[in-house]
């Protein structure tokens, strides 16, 4: 049986980055060689079994490591993302062109 995990490393002061999904925390424990604990979350959509863990990087505190396991069984909820947010994303997108 094969499991795929994606460990995202992101420079951020915020631990919980918005990924468009809703989560419920089900655990926290301290980790060896790291002064920050690791938190465990499960996707709160009924029937979806995606999990994620959030943890500060052991060697670089400015980086948060978000590790996902699984694929969502449902689409992202269309929240009312503010128009300014969409435009801000587009502004950054157009800078990459």
């Amino acid at each position, binding site marked *: *049986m*094969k*499991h*795929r*995990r*994606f*460990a*995202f*490393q*992101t*420079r*951020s002061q*915020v631990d919980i*980055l*918005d*990924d*468009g999904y809703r989560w419920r925390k089900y655990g926290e424990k301290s980790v060896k060689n790291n002064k920050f604990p690791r938190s465990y979350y499960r996707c709160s959509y009924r029937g979806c079994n*995606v999990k994620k863990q959030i943890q500060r990087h052991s060697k670089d505190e400015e980086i948060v490591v*978000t*590790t*996902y396991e*699984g*694929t*969502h*069984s*449902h*689409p*992202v909820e269309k929240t009312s993302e503010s*128009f*300014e947010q*969409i*435009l801000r*994303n*587009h502004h*950054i*997108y157009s800078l*990459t*062109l």
Partner: protein
Amino acid sequence: MATGGYSRGPVKVVIINTQYVETDATSFKSVVQKLTGKDSDTSGPKAQRNRHDKGGTERSFLMRDLSFKEFDRLLREMPPINDLWAE
């Protein structure tokens, strides 16, 4: 325990492959959805072809899945420019 084996059924082996992804905070959301979302291709992002690719090269993940119709709507609903960039 007595000597000799005890039966516990077939051994289950789980292989966990961890792929490391670096993103900045802004593109985090779209990349996460691309890799863990419902329509994600299990063979990974490289194998995916952009649905809206009009023959151009693949760019960033941002706004990739926004169809032209949606983008048109966004532009039409735009508030006045002055409101947007107010301090």
